[in-house]
Structures are given as structure tokens and as C-alpha cells.
């Protein structure tokens, strides 16, 4: 017998059978399309990060800080060749006279030709020039839409009413998802100065942009001066930093997406194995006849191997094509989460990679049932065997299992880059597999042992179907259980993340914060607040200062010490300090004594946040010297506090006692609670009109934005999980179909013997309900373990179970199983019994 004969036989044999391979093809297509789509998407993200880092930064090098650059550093910067530009950024209230609205905004005053890379897309196009040369404002398009404003309308900033020059339609500088809190308004520095918003106490962020000619290595330049700048709390960023930041930010997303792809692929593989298994099972008799007529075992294997490979190849290609198409959709799903628009191009390497990998893994899975062909004996033509299906003692099978584990491991390693993570995932998967397998064994054993002999016939029949020859209890429990576990892990983790955020919103928390208040305005503001029937929950003075020394050493000596354990940022940062004589109820004293007030001339005792003290590595009794706006103040640490970060209060790393800072330059923060949005709007407009320098921040709208972002994330997560669910359903179908033909015949026989339709339905409903209930329950238990591990060790969240999604998942899986099981019996009523009975011989 030669090859061409075998190929011919393979094609002839498959001729009438394509329909039976639908599930096989569907499994391959879904698995590979998920893989290709996600791989391509990731490739495009990486490519775009490379392309876009320059325009996201807008310059080759940026120096930022929350104060104007000191002269010596400025001289250093000036020595850089090329173009430069500056930006002053501050948060403020904007008042909209047209509809008496107000909004918390981010003002960015530009001087120079920023951005050097990328550009502002504006409507009208000329607005990009106008806002630099006139007092016109370039305003975020979302903000304009929200307040129904157009170019020509005006906005009041500080003391000035300014015209809108146009809308800004893109996101230069990658404002990203945070921009929802405070929409951006670009304006010229002259214009900003005219508003009187730049005052001594106002918090301004400064940025100095440089476009350097190409000969100079800015990263080299940076590494030499980084220290000098950071000692002055100035930070240098280059395009490379930007790229690394972005890559890091996307790493988590990438890993998540890759795991989803892997899970879809795995489920697809189970689908492949079980659908090939069905196919081969239907072929057993033909194969036995071929063998009777003198075909060798390996030749028989080759015939079906060839069929499966050809179809597998075709399916893989369709999958790759579909995946490339889905890849075009993905950026839309994620668009709200990405700081830039992803360009979708056909990523040939990913397609190729997905195709090869998918094909290799699915082929390996298909091999498991295919190898069984070699053991089919010609004796079958005379008498069918009791033990049907793939023999397990074939060493080649174990080799295939080994290859599957190795290739999965290699793939995991290639996407996570961590041997440990890959090993953990594989082991977790194997454990889940094993648990489900053992559980199904146990179940079968238990049913046999404790069979309820006095139940009604239909229930006993349904129950005993679980352990009868050719039962599908094990394959169904494993595939369904695994699918359920994945699905509910997703739900649990997502729910926990959402819950952790939502817990901010509870109770009688204050919801409005006013800041930037000057000391002489505070009484009037309190008065106004009471007029609106709103309580003054907190009234906090804030003094900014820096650390000047510790334990008798100056700050520079401290920083220069090579044995220093304190963190550089903790020493260098500008600290916002308050003073009061009590501990807040959102705080807890955990060490030392809190000193409420001191007399002039006495030693000054301060209280530190526990975490901040740890970063500074100071202890109770240590001496710290502060530079309070030019004046040196020596203090001693007398207590440590723990702050509850979920409470809606102002929180301070350092609290001074009364009697020290009262005369220092300071501004005030006022915390209040508005009963409704309408009251808040009226209050805000009123405050903004009277006190243009005061900012009113609505915390509940921030929470809303945060929840928006989270719901977008969970939408994206669910979209991806959809892949897994879809493949899971295919697997479910193919494993149920595994014995469909046998089941249909059985039911027809039962009918010829007088069973009513209802009785047959009850038998199968019992069987599939038990399978569905048990696999869903086991899957959910597994997912609880998995998500507990994930939540505790990866996400650092408190683990709590939300029951509703789990109940939903449970009922979804159970009803899906039962309905699919019942759907199979539909042939029983449609076809005449005699026709079905004739079929098998």
C-alpha cells in the first residue's frame, strides 16, 4: 500500500463526514483566533508605544517640579542646545457665565513651541496658534460638549473672563484616563498671569521642555545630573523613560490578555480532543473493517491523522483570519483605557506565531484520541468491546501528554518571562484538572455504593447513566468544572476590585473639599457654607515646608551618607503640614504621646504618619529640622499615627501642635458635605464668583469617574472572558455530543418500549442536572481558592466573597448543561423510531 492510496482513502472516508467535524473546526477556530487576535493586539501596542512615546512626552527631555527651577539648574538646562518651552500647570475652578456652571479644571500655560513632537489637533485648526498669541483658551472638547460651549463663548478663570479660541480634540502629553477628573485648558503664560491665579500659596507644577539636536545623548546627560536635580526635587524625564513607563503600565494588561488567550486556547484544545474523540469513535467500525481487509495499524492511524491535520490546518487558517479581524475590534473595546489611539496593522509575526503555536498544541491534543486508532482490533467487526475509547497504556500517549505540558510551559514562559509564574500556572492547571478528575471518580464510586434503590425509575435511570459504560461524567466534570473555575475567578476578582473602590462612598462622609483658601477668606467662606445649610466638617490650615536636617546633620549631609536607610524622596519632598490639638477620628495613635499644644520657646513635639516615619527611618525622640518658607524650625518626633485611607478626610503625614505655625504663611482647606448635586452646583457657582482663587472639588464626581473607569476595565475584561466562555460552550457541546448518537438510540428504544417523552426528558434532566450542579460547584470552589491566592498575593486586597455573581455563574452553567443535554433528545421526537433503530447495523 502506498501513500497516494492512503491519501485517497483519507479523502474518500472523510467525504460524507465533514458535518461531524464541525465542532472540531469550531474549537480550533476559536482557540486560534483568540490567540492571534490577542497576540496581534499586543504587538501593535508595543509598536505604538515605540512610535508614540515621543509625541506623548512632546520633547526629548522634560524637567518637572512643583516649584520654579532654581537658577543654577536653569543655567545647566540652558547649556543644552536646541529649542525649549515651558509649562505652568495648576488646578483651579472655571466659571461658565453662559449657563452659570462651574468646573474644576487643569490649566496649562504654555510658552514656546510645545509640543515638539506630535501636535495639538484643534477645531478650528487656527486655534492652535490663537491661544498662544491672544488671551483665547484652548479647551478640552469633552468639557465644551458637557457645557454646550463653542469657540467664541467665554469662561471665567480667576478674575478674568476669557474667550474660547477652540477645542482641543486629541490628548497631547497623554492625559489618559485621569483627565476626567479635571479637563484641561491650554492658555498662554501671559493669559494665566492676568487671571491672578498664580499666587504665593498656589500649587503650581512647572515643566521645562527641551528639543535637543540628535547628536546629544539625553539619557547620558540625564544620568550625570539626575542627582543634582533630584536634590532640588526636580525630575528629569526622557523619551526612553516614557517608553519604559508605558511598557511597564501595559505589561500587566499584556499578561492578562495573554492568559485569557491561553485559557481560550486550552479550552479549544479540550474541544479539539473531545471532538476528534467523537469522530474516531464513530469511525471505529470502519477502521475495524479496514483492518480486517489487511490494513496495518499505522496505516489506519495515518489515514485519520491526515484527515485531522488537513482540516486542522484549514481551521487554523480561518481562525487566524478571524483573529486578525477581531484584532481590529479590540482597540475599540480598550479605547477608553489607552492614552493613545492604537493603530491596527496586520501583525504578520503574531499571525504566524499564533498559527504555529495553535496548530502544534491542537495537533498534540488531537493526537490523544488519534493514537487510539492503532489499538483498534479487527475483532471489532465481530464483537464490540466493553472498554471503548482510547487505550491508556500506550507509551506514546504519555509522550504526547508530556509534550503538551512542555509546550504550554514554553509558551507561558515566552509571555510572562518568569519561570516561577509559568510553573505556578501549569501546576495550578494540573491540580485543577486532577481535583476535578478525582472528584468525578469519587462521585461515580459514591453513586454506585449508595445507590438510592427506592427512588422512582426515571431518577434512578438518570443517576445510573452517570456510571454506566461510555458515560461522560468524567470528561464533562473536568471540562465544565475548568470552564466554571475560570469564569468565576474572573468575576470574583473583578468584584473585589470594584468593591474596594466603592467602599469609599459609604456613610455620612463629607463629599466636598474647598482648597486654596487664604486665611482672611476663611470666616466669610464658613459663613457662606452655613448659609447653604452645609456643615463645616473640617477646617484645616496647611503650611508647606521641607526637611532641613535630622539628628544634628544637615539635609545634604544626610543625603550624602552612604549608610543612609531613609528614602531619598521622603527626605526631599515638599511636605504639607497642618497643626491641631487633637487626633482625628480617622486616625489612630500607635506609638508615643500626641502633644496638642506647646508654649512659645518650648520644644516642639510633632506627630508623624507611621508609613512616612518608616520611609524616613526616624523614631520617636528623633530630632527633625524643617525649613518653613525660609525659617528653620527644630522639632522632636513624639508620636506615630496610623491613618485610615478609606475615609474621606484630609490626611497629613506630619501634624504640628498648636502654638508654632499660626503666623507662618499658609492657606486653608475646608471640608463640607452637600446634601444634593443641585445644592452643590449653586454653592460652587456662588463660591467661585466671590472667591475666584478657591477651588471646590466634588469628591462624589471623582468617585463616579473612578467607577466609570473601573466599569470600562471590567467591560474589557468581560469582553476577553467572552472568548473563554464561547470556547467553553463549544467544549460543552462537543463533550455532550460525545455520546449523542448512543443517547438518541437509547431514548428511541425506551420509547418503543413505552416510555413517554416526559419520562425520557426527566431521565436526561436528572443526569445533566447532577453533572451541571457538581461541576459548577467544584469549579466555583476551585475558583475561590484561585482567586483567594490571586487577591491575597498578587493584588494585596482583602478577600471577601460576593455571592451574587457566583450564584449567577452557577445557574448559568447548570441550565446550559441541562438545556444542551435535553436539546440532544430532540431527534427522538422528530425521527421515526424505526429509522433510528435501523441505523446501527
Amino acid at each position, binding site marked *: 500500500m502506498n501513500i497516494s492510496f492512503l491519501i485517497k482513502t483519507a479523502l474518500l472516508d472523510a467525504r460524507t463526514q465533514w458535518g461531524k467535524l464541525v465542532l472540531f473546526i469550531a474549537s480550533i477556530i476559536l482557540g486560534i483566533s483568540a490567540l492571534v487576535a490577542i497576540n496581534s493586539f499586543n504587538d501593535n501596542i508595543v509598536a505604538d508605544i515605540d512610535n508614540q512615546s515621543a509625541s506623548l512626552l512632546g520633547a526629548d527631555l522634560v524637567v518637572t517640579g512643583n516649584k520654579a527651577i532654581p537658577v543654577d539648574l536653569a543655567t545647566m538646562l540652558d547649556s543644552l542646545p536646541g529649542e525649549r518651552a515651558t509649562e505652568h500647570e495648576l488646578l483651579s475652578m472655571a466659571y461658565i457665565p453662559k449657563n452659570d456652571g462651574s468646573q474644576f479644571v487643569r490649566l496649562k500655560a504654555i510658552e514656546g513651541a510645545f509640543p515638539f513632537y506630535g501636535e495639538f489637533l484643534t477645531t478650528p485648526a487656527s486655534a492652535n496658534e490663537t491661544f498662544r498669541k491672544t488671551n483665547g483658551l484652548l479647551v478640552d472638547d469633552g468639557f465644551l460638549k458637557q457645557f454646550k460651549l463653542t469657540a467664541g463663548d467665554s469662561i471665567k478663570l480667576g478674575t478674568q473672563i476669557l474667550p474660547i479660541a477652540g477645542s482641543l480634540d486629541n490628548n497631547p502629553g497623554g492625559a489618559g484616563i485621569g483627565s476626567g477628573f479635571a479637563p484641561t485648558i491650554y492658555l498662554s503664560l501671559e493669559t494665566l498671569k492676568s487671571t491672578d491665579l498664580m499666587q504665593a500659596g498656589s500649587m503650581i507644577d512647572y515643566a521645562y521642555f527641551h528639543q535637543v539636536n540628535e547628536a546629544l545623548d539625553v539619557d547620558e546627560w540625564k544620568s550625570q545630573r539626575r542627582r543634582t536635580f533630584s536634590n532640588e526635587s526636580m525630575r528629569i524625564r526622557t523619551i526612553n523613560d516614557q517608553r519604559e513607563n508605558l511598557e511597564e503600565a501595559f505589561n500587566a494588561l499584556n499578561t492578562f490578555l495573554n492568559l485569557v488567550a491561553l485559557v481560550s486556547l486550552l479550552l479549544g484544545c479540550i474541544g479539539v480532543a473531545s471532538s476528534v474523540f467523537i469522530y474516531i469513535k464513530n469511525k471505529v467500525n470502519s477502521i475495524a473493517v479496514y483492518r480486517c481487509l489487511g490494513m496495518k495499524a499505522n496505516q489506519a492511524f495515518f489515514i485519520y491523522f491526515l484527515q485531522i491535520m488537513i482540516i486542522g490546518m484549514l481551521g487554523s487558517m480561518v481562525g487566524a483570519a478571524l483573529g486578525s479581524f477581531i484584532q481590529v475590534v479590540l482597540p475599540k473595546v480598550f479605547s477608553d483605557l489607552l492614552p493613545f489611539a492604537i493603530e491596527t496593522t496586520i501583525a504578520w509575526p503574531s499571525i504566524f506565531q499564533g498559527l504555529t503555536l495553535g496548530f502544534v498544541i491542537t495537533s498534540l491534543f488531537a493526537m490523544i484520541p488519534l493514537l487510539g486508532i492503532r489499538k483498534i482490533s479487527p475483532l471489532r467487526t465481530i464483537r464490540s468491546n466493553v472498554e471503548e475509547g482510547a487505550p491508556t497504556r500506550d507509551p506514546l500517549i504519555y509522550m504526547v501528554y508530556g509534550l503538551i505540558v512542555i509546550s504550554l510551559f514554553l509558551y507561558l514562559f515566552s509571555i510572562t518571562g518568569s519561570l516561577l509564574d509559568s510553573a505556578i500556572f501549569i501546576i495550578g492547571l494540573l491540580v485543577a484538572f486532577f481535583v476535578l478528575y478525582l472528584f468525578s471518580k469519587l462521585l461515580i464510586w459514591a453513586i454506585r455504593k449508595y445507590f438510592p434503590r427506592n427512588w422512582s425509575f426515571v431518577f434512578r435511570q438518570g443517576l445510573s447513566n452517570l456510571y*454506566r459504560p461510555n458515560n461522560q461524567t468524567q470528561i464533562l466534570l473536568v471540562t465544565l468544572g475548568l470552564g466554571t473555575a475560570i469564569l468565576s475567578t474572573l468575576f470574583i476578582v473583578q468584584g473585589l476590585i470594584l468593591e474596594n473602590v466603592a467602599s469609599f462612598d459609604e456613610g455620612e462622609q463629607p463629599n466636598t473639599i474647598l482648597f486654596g483658601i487664604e486665611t482672611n477668606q476663611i470666616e466669610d467662606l464658613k459663613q457662606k457654607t452655613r448659609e447653604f445649610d452645609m456643615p463645616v466638617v473640617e477646617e484645616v490650615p496647611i503650611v508647606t515646608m521641607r526637611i532641613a536636617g535630622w539628628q544634628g546633620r544637615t539635609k545634604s549631609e544626610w543625603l550624602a551618607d552612604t549608610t543612609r536607610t531613609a528614602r531619598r524622596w521622603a527626605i526631599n519632598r515638599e511636605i504639607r503640614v497642618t497643626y491641631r490639638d487633637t487626633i482625628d477620628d480617622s486616625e489612630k495613635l500607635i506609638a508615643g504621646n500626641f502633644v496638642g499644644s506647646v508654649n512659645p520657646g518650648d520644644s516642639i513635639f510633632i506627630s508623624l504618619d507611621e508609613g512616612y516615619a518608616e520611609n524616613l527611618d526616624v523614631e520617636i525622640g528623633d530630632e527633625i529640622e524643617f525649613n518653613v518658607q525660609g525659617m528653620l524650625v527644630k522639632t522632636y518626633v513624639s508620636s506615630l499615627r496610623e491613618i485610615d485611607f478609606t475615609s474621606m478626610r484630609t490626611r497629613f503625614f506630619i501634624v504640628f501642635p498648636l502654638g508654632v505655625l499660626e503666623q507662618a504663611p499658609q492657606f486653608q482647606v475646608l471640608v463640607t458635605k452637600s446634601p444634593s448635586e443641585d445644592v452643590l452646583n449653586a454653592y460652587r457657582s456662588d463660591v467661585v464668583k466671590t472667591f475666584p482663587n478657591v477651588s471646590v472639588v466634588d469628591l462624589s464626581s471623582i468617585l463616579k469617574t473612578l467607577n466609570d473607569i473601573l466599569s470600562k476595565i471590567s467591560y474589557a475584561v468581560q469582553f476577553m472572558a467572552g472568548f473563554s466562555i464561547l470556547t467553553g460552550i463549544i467544549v460543552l457541546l462537543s463533550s455532550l455530543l460525545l455520546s449523542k448518537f448512543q443517547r438518541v438510540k437509547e431514548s428511541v428504544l425506551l420509547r418503543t*418500549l413505552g416510555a413517554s417523552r416526559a419520562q425520557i426528558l426527566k431521565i436526561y434532566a436528572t443526569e445533566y442536572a447532577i453533572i451541571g450542579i457538581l461541576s459548577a460547584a467544584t469549579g466555583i470552589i476551585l475558583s475561590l481558592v484561585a482567586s483567594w491566592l490571586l487577591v491575597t498575593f498578587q493584588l494585596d486586597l482583602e478577600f471577601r466573597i460576593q455571592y451574587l455573581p457566583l450564584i449567577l455563574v452557577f445557574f448559568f452553567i447548570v441550565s446550559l448543561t441541562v438545556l444542551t443535554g435535553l436539546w440532544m433528545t430532540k431527534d427522538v421526537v422528530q425521527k421515526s423510531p424505526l429509522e433510528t433503530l435501523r441505523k446501527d447495523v
Partner: protein
Amino acid sequence: MDEPVDVVKVDQLSKVYSGHGKELTVLKEINFSVKAGESVSIIGPSGSGKTTLLGLCAGLDAPSSGSVSLFNQDISKLNEDQRAVLRNDKVGFIFQNFQLIPTLTAIENISIPMELKGLKNIKSTAMSLLDRVGLSDRAKHYPNQLSGGEQQRISLARAFSNNPKLLFADEPTGNLDGDTGAKVEDLLFDLNRENGTTLIIVTHDLELATKTQRRIRLKNGEIVEDSRV
């Protein structure tokens, strides 16, 4: 016995299979009726339509035209569930190819009609039936662990298990050696004699055919002989 009624009445029954563009008429306007307690054999060459006729009579298939009445009820007017109940109550069927449920043991196969009826003492009845067909030591065997003749006898026992008023048997002795075949025949005719069960037997075995009260010969889908002994 009362005035014998028509247990089976076949009226102008035709069956046409269509497929691959051709029509194949398997049964042509068949008419006959069988009285209660009668034993009838249907004979004819292979492919003449015997199994088809039996299947139509038992309501396992739908006729192309004409009608079948069982116990004075036109079965085409019953829905599938009502037909199932009728079969369970009054009709037994022995298939040419046995049709045991492969996932059930011998004794479980025999028990099904009684289980469906909701009878008591199923197990002992099933065991005594198994004994009658000489297979009491095979109770826990699955069909594929039994020889063809043994499967045939199990299917016989199953057909008896609900005490049918009407029994259709498609080649009940086809796979059996002389001795066993004779035993099976005895069982069938005992049932006919003791319970008044109406027997309709399809067979190639002319010797068996002579033992029935009536013989119907089929050829090319038509009745060519209908004779009483």
C-alpha cells in the same frame, strides 16, 4: 372468550421511501386484519418489506398512506406519547437485531417495560423471565458480553415482561440453533395459549410458519398469499 375483536387492522397501507431522487415503494396497499388470540406468520424473501410492515403495525414508523388500527384505535390519530403508552400497556416487540440498550445489563434491559409501567417486584419477575429463557447466570452481563442468540433471548424476555396482548416478533429464532430455537418457539406459543396473546411473527423458517394458525406471504410489497391452517 368473548366475540374475538380485531386486534390489528391494516387498511390500504403503503410505504414509499424516497431518496436520491428515486422512489422505492416497499409496501403497496396492504389490507389484512388479525383477531385476538390469533397467531400469524409473515413470510417472504429478503427485502420484501416484512420488517417495514411490522414496524408500521407497531407504530414505530409512519405510513405513506393508509392506516393501522390496534385494539380498534387508529394509531395515526394518536400522538407519540399516547402510542408509547399503548405499546407499554399492550404491545411487545422483538427486533430482528435485538435492540438491547448497550449501557444496561441483561436484567436491567428486561426490567425497563415494568419500570416504565411502575410495577412492583420487578426484580423477581425479571429474574424468573431470565430463568425461563435459560440465562439466569447472565443477569449482570452487558449486551456486548453476550452472544447473538443470548441477546435474542434477552430481547424475548423483555418483550414478555409486560404481559403484552399483542406481540410482534421479527425473526425471533433467526440466530438460534435448533434446540434453543425450539425453546423460544415454545415460549412464544405458550404465551399465546396461556394468556391469549396475539402473535405476529416474521420468519424465514417455514417450519415455524406452519405452527401458526395463519400465514401471510409478502412479495415485492404485496400480499401474495393469506392462508389459514
